């Protein structure tokens, strides 16, 4: 208030230098944090590679399975992809339908609550899904497996013999589908709700029914968002560990038979089951399979983000 006792010029100079020092420190700290994150991501790749080198260079006979790392990881990659694809095939249409229901069908007042309830599915830990899949879902699917073997046995997927415990690839895929449902529906919900109101109202004004409006104005607009969301879900399904480890009854080998008790394991589940009891070269081999999983999910996620981000640019131009 009394600026007389502190002349502005004198007060300004020291504060300006302090200011810029504080500014520089803070800017440096936050930039450093950003760079640290990139370093960690690079570090994940680097340390996985360095710890798995042993198994890649080791003679094939010493690696678990006795035929080298590549034939060890092969069936696991197949199992991982199979379970994730089942999950994706089931969850994508369901997730899109749920997103449509919440954005355009449910009464406005309850829509937000319903969205929150669906998001609750994402909050439940993976291990609890495993418990539920083992205790509730698997037994209730057993009659269906028996029916499928009798009536659909001509398809390779349902060749049987049907599992009596229900711990099959199909069960694991369904559990994964439920786990990725909230991801797909959340992203679809977001893009559907952003569909331009003018387009929607124009469609309705021309006499379109609600479904025709969605088909003409909402779905074309949200298509790439749905694709991106499905791929993010795929990434999550590929890496899910405990739910598969608990639910799936594993015996190795490659088979498209979805309802029998002998299934290929997935990379993540195999690591969870083997790692605690492994040592030496076996650990290195498991880390190598982890590296393969990391590369696959990284590729899927990067592609998904690319698709989603491209849509964001497009909608910004609108």
């Amino acid at each position, binding site marked *: 208030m009394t600026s007389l006792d502190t002349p502005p010029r004198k007060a300004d100079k020291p504060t300006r230098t302090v200011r810029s020092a504080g500014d520089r420190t803070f800017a440096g700290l936050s930039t450093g*944090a950003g760079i640290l994150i990139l370093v960690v991501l690079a570090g994940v790749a680097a340390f996985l590679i360095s710890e798995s080198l042993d198994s890649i260079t080791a003679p094939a006979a010493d690696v678990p399975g006795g035929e080298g790392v590549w034939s060890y990881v092969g069936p696991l990659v197949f199992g991982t992809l199979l379970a994730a694809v089942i999950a994706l095939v089931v969850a994508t249409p369901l997730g899109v339908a749920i997103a449509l229901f919440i954005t355009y069908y449910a009464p406005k007042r309850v829509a937000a609550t319903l969205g929150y309830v669906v998001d609750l599915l994402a909050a439940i830990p993976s291990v609890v899904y495993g*418990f539920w899949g083992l205790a509730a879902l698997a037994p209730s699917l057993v009659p269906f497996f028996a029916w499928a073997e009798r009536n659909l046995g001509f398809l390779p997927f349902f060749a049987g013999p049907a599992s009596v415990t229900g711990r099959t690839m199909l069960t694991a895929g369904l559990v994964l589908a439920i786990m990725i449902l909230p991801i797909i529906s959340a992203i679809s919900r977001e893009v559907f709700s952003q569909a331009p109101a003018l387009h929607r109202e124009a469609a309705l004004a021309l006499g379109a029914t609600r479904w025709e409006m969605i088909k003409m104005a909402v779905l074309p607009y949200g298509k790439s968002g749905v694709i991106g969301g499905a791929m993010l879900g795929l990434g999550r399904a590929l890496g899910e560990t405990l739910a598969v480890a608990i639910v799936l009854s594993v015996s190795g080998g490659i088979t498209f038979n979805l309802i029998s008790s002998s299934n290929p394991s997935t990379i993540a589940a195999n690591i969870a089951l083997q790692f605690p009891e492994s040592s030496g070269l076996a650990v290195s081999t498991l880390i190598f399979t982890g590296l393969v999983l990391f590369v696959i999910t990284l590729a899927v996620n990067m592609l998904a983000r690319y698709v989603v981000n491209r849509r964001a640019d497009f909608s910004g131009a609108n």
Partner: protein
Amino acid sequence: MSTTTPTRPEAPEPLAPAVGHRRGLPRFGGTAVFAAGLVLAALATLASGWSWGLFAVYGIVLGCLVTYVVSRAVEGRRKATDRLVTALVSSAFAIAMVPLVSLVYTVVSNGIGRLDGTFFSNSMVGVVGEGGGAYHAIMGTLIITALATLISVPVGLLAAIYLVEYGRGRLKKALTFFVDVMTGIPSIVAGLFAYALFAIFFGPGIRFGLGGAVALSVLMIPVVVRSSEEVLKLVPNELREASYALGVSKWRTILKVVVPTAIAGLGTSVTLAIARVIGETAPLLVIVGITAATNFDPFDGRMATLPVYAYYQLTQPGVPPEFGIGRAWTAALVLIIIVMALNVVARLISRFFAPKTGR
């Protein structure tokens, strides 16, 4: 009808007869027809032996079919398709609720039995069969999650501040993209990373709590960055400009204006990030392991954590198995309660500490 405001004339009368000839189902007619389909489905299920799964399948198929046929006969093809899609979309939502309800019911009914004092006060030292608890696992989970939060929140917040306040050019683009990609890292890979990192320093077979905290941080940091970034973006630019106009430096503006304005959202995002990692099992299985005794020291030796404890009690319940399996379900129940509580706390934070700039 108020007399003070001039009311517009009602909808033009002459149109009414033109619309009048259109046939349609009455209000809630679609729901009633769908319900009729459900009744048919119930009868069909009864004919071939009752089961809820079969009823659900028949119900959705018959409900949709009856809706379509009736509507098609009364209202025509376009309306019928519309009603069919409405029925399908609503059924999809109902289907998604089935696992949620079933899961909560299964976990509660199986886990409620051992939800007693012993469970929260005893560890598993010397326990064979009956008794025993998860005191050591609960403490382990709290310690490791707290450590992970201590690592993740400063790094994540600073990175979010960088993205919103300082970042530009290639580094910002790269960081945004790779943080998004990092949210998709499988949790078990994060565990393997922590193992590979510490195995180099401490030799193979390393198991300790801090490693688990590092693994969880790899999963937690991108979540904190993403959600904090969204929250910081919501702070109106006018506030920053007002602060600059008063001669306040940038870093003080951030610390004294931007962060306090966004504090509720930041609290919510951190709480949700904690909820996201507290149930993680796979990385802790790899790098922390399991033990029967209570270990408060995250720098030395194996620790028990609640999810890993639940997993081992289920898969290696001991003899006789029912006690171990009972403890496993109770651990799962406690885990769900913790996660749900964190979600509720997150919502409460954003409700009660809402930004003061709201209009």
